[in-house]
């Protein structure tokens, strides 16, 4: 039986109808809202490709039923920044050429966005710990960590201006 839900994604409210009550947020984002930057990797929350922010916290959208985010605010990679106005994390990943295939990057950016959003300086250990459940197969890890460190510095400078 189909159900209808009101959800807020990237500050915009949407009414979405799903055929299966447990439909994960990931499919609504990609198919109903056309937000393709959130990616399917494994379907059980173990690779991090589908990470979004829910009220500022990094969550796996592949196993998060859409009903569970009613009344909460979802941010996807598209809401974080655009090519014209990139978020410091997006900017830094490009600056450091921190990627090869790039499939894991939007999930990694969203995980790092929670860390950076706290405002506290993330040590390398904290970055690595935060990314513990994000996988990268191409081996871009060291550049990604360096980019996140640089993004934090850039975000602090940006906030100070």
């Amino acid at each position, binding site marked *: 039986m189909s159900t209808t839900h009101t959800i807020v994604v990237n500050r915009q409210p949407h009414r979405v109808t799903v055929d299966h009550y447990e439909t994960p947020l990931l499919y609504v984002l990609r198919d109903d809202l056309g937000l393709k930057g959130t990616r399917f990797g494994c379907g059980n929350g173990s*690779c991090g490709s589908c990470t979004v922010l829910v009220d500022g916290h990094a969550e796996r959208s592949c196993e998060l039923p859409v009903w569970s985010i009613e009344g909460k605010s979802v941010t996807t990679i598209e809401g974080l920044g655009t090519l014209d106005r990139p978020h410091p994390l*997006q900017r830094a990943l490009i600056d450091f050429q921190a990627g090869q295939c790039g499939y894991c990057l939007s999930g990694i950016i969203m995980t790092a966005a929670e860390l950076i959003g706290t405002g506290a300086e993330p040590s390398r250990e904290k970055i690595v710990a935060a990314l513990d459940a994000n996988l990268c197969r191409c081996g871009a890890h060291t550049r990604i960590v360096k980019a996140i460190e640089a993004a934090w510095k850039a975000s602090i400078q940006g906030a100070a201006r």
Partner: protein
Amino acid sequence: MTEPKLPWSVQENPLLCQWIDLSEPGIARVFSAKVEIGQGIVTAVTQIAAEELRLPMSKVVVVSGDTRCCPNESYTAGSMSIEIGGTSVRMACAEARKAIVERAARMLDAEESRVTADGGLILLDGAPSRLDYWQVAGEVDWKRPITGTAPFTAPESSTYLGRNVARLDLPAKVAGAAFIHDLELPGMLHGRVLRPPSYGARLGSLDRSAVEHLPGVVKIWQSGDFVGVCCEREYQAVKALEALRVGAAWIESEVSSDTRSWRELLPTLRSIDSETEAGERLAGAANVRRLSATYSRPPIAHASMAPSCAVAIYDEGRLTVWTNSQGVFPLRGALASALGLDEARVAVIHVQGAGVYGHNGADDVALDAALLARQVPSRPVRIQWNREDELAWSPLGSPMVVEIESAVSPAGDIVDWSTEIWSGPHGQRPRARGPVNLLAAAHVDPPIPFPEAYEVLSGFAGGARNSEPGYDMPHRKIVLHSLPGLPFRTSALRTLGGYANVFATESFMDELADAAGADPVEFRLRYLSDPRARRVIETAVRLAGWQSNAERGTGRASGIGFARYKNTAAYVAVIANVEVHQDVRVAKVVGAVDAGLVINPDGVVNQIEGGILQSISWTLKEQVVFDGRRVTTRTWEEYPILRFDEVPELEVGLIERPDCPPLGVGEAAQGPAAAAVANAVARALDFRIRDLPITRERIVAASAAASA
């Protein structure tokens, strides 16, 4: 005058118009069948084209992997995209510029020596003339063959070659839609395929009743052991697949009941054997010390971050497929054969996917999409595999056993060398053997089964790649036992046999050095007269601060590995520092690479870094488990890969040789990195683990054996 040597891609696609199109003012379209698989090739090819056309990169559009307009360059594989594909584009673009300048000189009625080209303008005596490229292009005969006689831009005067140009594809990938998975066509259906539970399984019965009335189900199609479903929306397809799985009754059978380790099992299997021998055993050496050792690696998975995905539409007898296959032309042929279509009625178009490290499921899912698209004519069908099928049904990297035997004289001379390899085939790509070679083709009725596959040393022998030790030796013998009867499908995975063969050769070089009482670095240099090989080792040694007299068995040590990939591509030396307690922690890795002329230095460094890290993941963590019926490692929990907290500090030194031809790097670091880690672990523990991966269980078992 001798004819210039044309790269294979130009020989196959000899006309300028097959490579370049200047019909749209202000834009140079350059065609290549070498596709982006995460390695940065499109950026590098754009650099090359812009350089030789003397155009800004913004005016060059590289169209890659489209059977409708690109040259047929077969596969993007074997670390040959820059060597062959890049050189071909370079040759075509240099020749295009030459043709334009020649024509412009006639149009301006001027001596050719007075005419040059820059930024799309035709210059006369260094000043802009009334002509630009595109005005002249209309007057050039583009159907002329490429001769290879136009000079290349000299590296020292180049604008883009050897420069760190940022990847053109990366911005889109950090901002939103960028992949085949994100393609959305009007009216597109979402499909799923129900794979058998195991290799030998046959479909006994299928109850469709619980599926037909699910929301959004448009088509359920069964043919033989192939079952697919198409739905209006993606999650509907996920649910429909779940219901199909419940309704399917499979008859399973064991395909192999042998549970021995790969080291024990492979040499007992039926094999097709071939051998080569060169040189003479060193005569007259007395009191030689003879050594032999056997190494193994398990089957490994591509384990791409994304499950395989493709989109197809079948309309009025024509099939169009969007795919991230490494070979759009061979795939076109395989699809046409599988579907009984004329090849001219099939178009295959590359769209970027997640990292491709060889022959994964990208081709198979293209046939899945094509089969289902034919059931719902004129509607595009998007098929995506799930994680479990991705890990279980993509072709695997073959398990291998490598036995090396050699002898050293008291003076430290290597007397002889023989390598014996047991391996499944590494080349079962579409059309590599038989007309199809695609998964679903073996499941539909009537099936097109996979032909028996094996390799011989006189032909394509992926299992023997890098089996030839790259050292100066009087004699070597290589024996390949190719195993056609492995109970699962194996094919090309980054380096093919090169990873296991370099791991074995370089481990054995350390064992020989120990026997000779020599330092591993000094011992290798004794047998290397190639100055480029020496220089990468010396560079790595310098960067890593190698200590030759380091104590053994302390739990901390360094190890070295070296190889020239395929004995013809880039030279790489790797030094790893490890700490071993029960687990191996790789603390720091230093690599040095000589790839000849480098188009994009940061791109090369990125490839080497990635190659090192992927190799550490293979070496310490990865093994596909097969229980006699099926692959049981189907999730990231069952098939773990390297995590962020296991990543070492990395440093890569690049030796630039702009006067040498460019050499492929995508697969150059994996073998040396594995050997460096294994050799470091052996020094740290003072005993050696010769079976990969080097896990805690293996260390504990080997430790018990060593102290017994």
